[in-house]
């Protein structure tokens, strides 16, 4: 189907036709990965977590239940499970077990601690459209924020470029495991994200330089120009459907197939347009920093105009104003519990935002952090939402709320078939809490990633520590110098 605007530009081939013609399995030229994951789960035998309150992440709560992990996977969830003789049994009586916590919006590694100028690697603020940059190439794996997040139960996280640009670049999803390389953390097979940004940030950054965009209308013109280029690129680089011509008896079969279309599928690669083409094809998931309801709906229209899908709006302090629309369009809202007012587009923030976005059928509410502090306690952020929702007459059970931190972010990251819930066959990404996680006193006691005990509050040998923190006198009490003080 031709959309009027695209027809006007003479760009006939788009979304529907292209997507239908693309076979799923082989990575397209837009999403080949020259920097592949080298992540290998830590070795570990079977683990049986026993007698816990289990929030499965699918909306279920099981009391006095067991979770069996083996070969890196969740094998079974239920009561009085049988386990292999060599399984490590963990008595989780009185404790709560949840899927590993997932943050869809982090800048760990690209804006690491310490936050010195040399570490400022999150915003390529040299041009408003930089889909050619990949956040993973900025990640400093020694950011102490990773281990702090792990102690808060974070097992997977998406590292995004910042929001200075209209199109900021590719985000990458990581397993939150200690590694000297980001490839060693890269979530195998997770799709990339594409970071886009609405509103004040791009227009402020570039407008203050007297370059475009300097207004919100300039922002939208910038997205459209970029996607027009991407649509053209996609058309030129997409292989023509097979057998455009009948083969003749005098031609060899190889000459008949493929060769003719080579001039269309070849051409110089364009890193920017690769990313945008991947987004249009749905292989790269679109994550948009966008605060206001009206701007989010503009972006939904933009997505329709160019045939891409929005995976999630991030920050969305006004998402509650369009909760029904977001659910109807199957778009997630990745939101804070209570931040507001730091700039004009954040002035209408309310503490029930996440709860209201969660309310419609088929909703996808997510608690996100965008903060090295917040990521350590997404459970507390959710607890604040539950408490204020209750005051407003919305009772939200823990087994529902945990989905804001597990199942829903996994869906937004395109990894929902592998993690985010405690179901047989899913990755063994699990947190054992000292009690109900929705409390300021809750602590992650053990964190499992792919079935391996990556963090244990009671076992110093399972508490990773960044290279940066080694040999720092400031981490110890000040020495008492001299005999007399």
């Amino acid at each position, binding site marked *: 189907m031709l959309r009027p605007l695209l027809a006007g530009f003479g760009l006939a081939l788009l979304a529907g036709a292209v997507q239908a013609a693309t076979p799923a399995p082989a990575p397209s030229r837009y999403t080949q990965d020259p920097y592949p994951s080298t992540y290998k789960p830590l070795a570990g035998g079977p683990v049986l977590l026993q007698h816990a309150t289990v929030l499965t992440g699918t909306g279920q709560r099981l009391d006095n239940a067991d979770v069996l992990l083996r070969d890196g996977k969740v094998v079974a969830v239920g009561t009085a499970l049988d386990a292999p003789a060599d399984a490590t049994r963990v008595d989780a009586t009185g404790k709560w077990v949840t899927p590993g916590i997932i943050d869809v919006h982090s800048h760990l590694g690209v804006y690491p601690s310490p936050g010195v100028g040399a570490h400022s690697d999150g915003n390529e603020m040299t041009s408003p459209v930089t889909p050619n940059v990949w956040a993973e190439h900025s990640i400093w794996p020694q950011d102490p924020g990773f281990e*702090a997040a792990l102690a808060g139960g974070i097992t997977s996280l998406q590292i995004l470029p910042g929001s200075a640009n209209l199109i900021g670049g590719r985000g990458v999803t990581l397993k939150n495991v200690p590694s000297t390389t980001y490839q060693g953390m890269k979530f195998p097979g997770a799709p990339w994200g594409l970071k886009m940004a609405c509103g004040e940030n791009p227009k402020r950054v570039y407008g203050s330089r007297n370059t475009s965009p300097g207004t919100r209308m300039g922002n939208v013109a910038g997205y459209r120009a970029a996607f027009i280029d991407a649509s053209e690129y996609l058309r030129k680089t997409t292989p023509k459907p097979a057998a455009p011509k009948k083969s003749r008896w005098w031609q060899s079969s190889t000459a008949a197939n493929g060769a003719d279309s080579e001039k269309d599928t070849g051409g110089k690669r364009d890193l920017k347009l690769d990313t945008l083409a991947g987004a249009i094809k749905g292989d790269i998931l679109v994550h948009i920093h966008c605060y206001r309801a009206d701007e989010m709906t503009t972006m939904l229209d933009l997505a329709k105009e160019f045939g891409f899908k929005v995976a999630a709006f991030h920050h969305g302090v006004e998402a509650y104003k369009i909760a029904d629309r977001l659910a109807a369009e199957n778009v997630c809202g990745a939101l804070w519990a209570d931040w507001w007012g730091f700039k*004009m587009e954040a002035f209408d923030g309310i503490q029930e935002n996440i709860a209201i976005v969660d309310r419609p059928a088929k909703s996808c509410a997510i608690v996100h952090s965008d903060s090295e502090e917040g990521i350590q306690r997404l459970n507390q952020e959710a607890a604040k939402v539950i408490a204020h929702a209750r005051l*407003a007459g919305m009772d939200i059970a823990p087994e529902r709320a945990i989905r804001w931190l597990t199942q829903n972010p996994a869906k937004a990251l395109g990894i929902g078939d592998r993690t985010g819930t405690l179901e047989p066959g899913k990755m063994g990404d699990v947190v054992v809490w000292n009690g109900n996680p929705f409390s300021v006193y809750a602590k992650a006691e053990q964190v499992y990633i792919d079935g391996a005990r990556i963090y244990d509050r009671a076992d110093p040998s399972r508490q990773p520590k960044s290279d940066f923190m080694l040999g720092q006198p400031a981490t110890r009490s000040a020495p008492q110098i001299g005999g007399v003080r």
Partner: protein
Amino acid sequence: MSRVSVSRRAPLFAAMLLGASFAASAQNVLIRDAKVHTATAQGTLERADVLVGNGLVRAVGKGLSAPAGVKVIEAEGRPLTPTLFGGITEIGLEEVSGEKSTVDQTVALGADTKEMTVRPEFDVTLAYNPDSVLIPVARIEGIGWTLLGAGTATGGSIVAGQGGIERLDGGPDPIGPRVLFVRLGKDGLGLSGSSRAAQWMILDQLIDESRGRITPDNHAALLTPAGRAALQKYFGGGGRIVFGVDRAADIRQLLRWSTKHQLRIAIAGGGEAWRLAPQLAAAKVPVFVNPLSNLPSDFDQVGASMENAARLQAAGVAVGFSEGGASHNARKVRQLAGNAVAAGLPWDAGLAGLTRVPAEAFGVAGEVGSIAPGKRADLVLWSADPLDVSSVALQVWMDGRAIEMRSRQTELRDRYMRPDNGLPRAYSAPSGN
């Protein structure tokens, strides 16, 4: 109308809120059967009563009876605290942080020339806007008072100026004495010629000027007559000076300097304060920490720790809470205290950091920060543990008046939560809804 709708949603609190509505105009009330966290040496009183008369707490104890005509609130065993300290904020000094036209906490008269100007007489409380929407937003979460802070910027100096305590009752005037703010360490580098060492050079120069060793006509004089008078007060020990500082080495210099000059100081930030806990306790310096700052976010706090508050308190330091720059979200200060408790701080010390400690540090303990006879009846009734994020404030009283538990945010919430009635939401709901 609004109260009816709230109580319909949350029938649990109906009786209490109904009672509150009748008591709203009066300043006499008996709150019965509460878990009273006095924030005094009395500690917590289970199933106790608090009698309020003419806006003041008159009695605290068991089995108090209400004088004729005094409204009775049944707390049903829920916690009652003094209203909480919101930390050092810019509530009423900034409406939208990113919009300069709404922000008043910093003076930078030399901004155009990038010249240092030292104006300790600058008093941010004069810009306080009691009609800020931030005030009800904080107040309905149990935040009843805050210390307005002065900020620093290029064209000002490390001596930021003065602030004071504002009660968030909508009144225009601060209570208690003024407080002077000074910025040290990394965040003051741009104002001290790019060296921490020069911060002491500048402060010593100001000491000399305030004590007459640099005369007003001397080429090295930095102050106006009003600024000189202001510094003479603080450098004479006549007012509290809050130093924003994190690094242990800077704190050590500060302790030497303030001891030498016999100053009354407090520390805000104090990321590495725990490393000098015994010295801070000996010098009786209260420290206002953000327990959530547990990362080496810069080279001034490589030693940041979740246990900062707990270690300071164990050494005998008075610990309060403040999240730098958290005006809009000042309500988060409860989460700071709760996390400190989760990291080892005794619960009572967690509450004290939001009540008694700041009240005493800033000279307003006679009015706020505890529940005791003669104190203002600034009170909060909580759904449960006030330090837990899973709890909420159910009712706040200021001077014994039950405040309306509404803010611009609850207005927005109610507008967008109500079912679609066919009209744009810009129209108010039909009466009865």
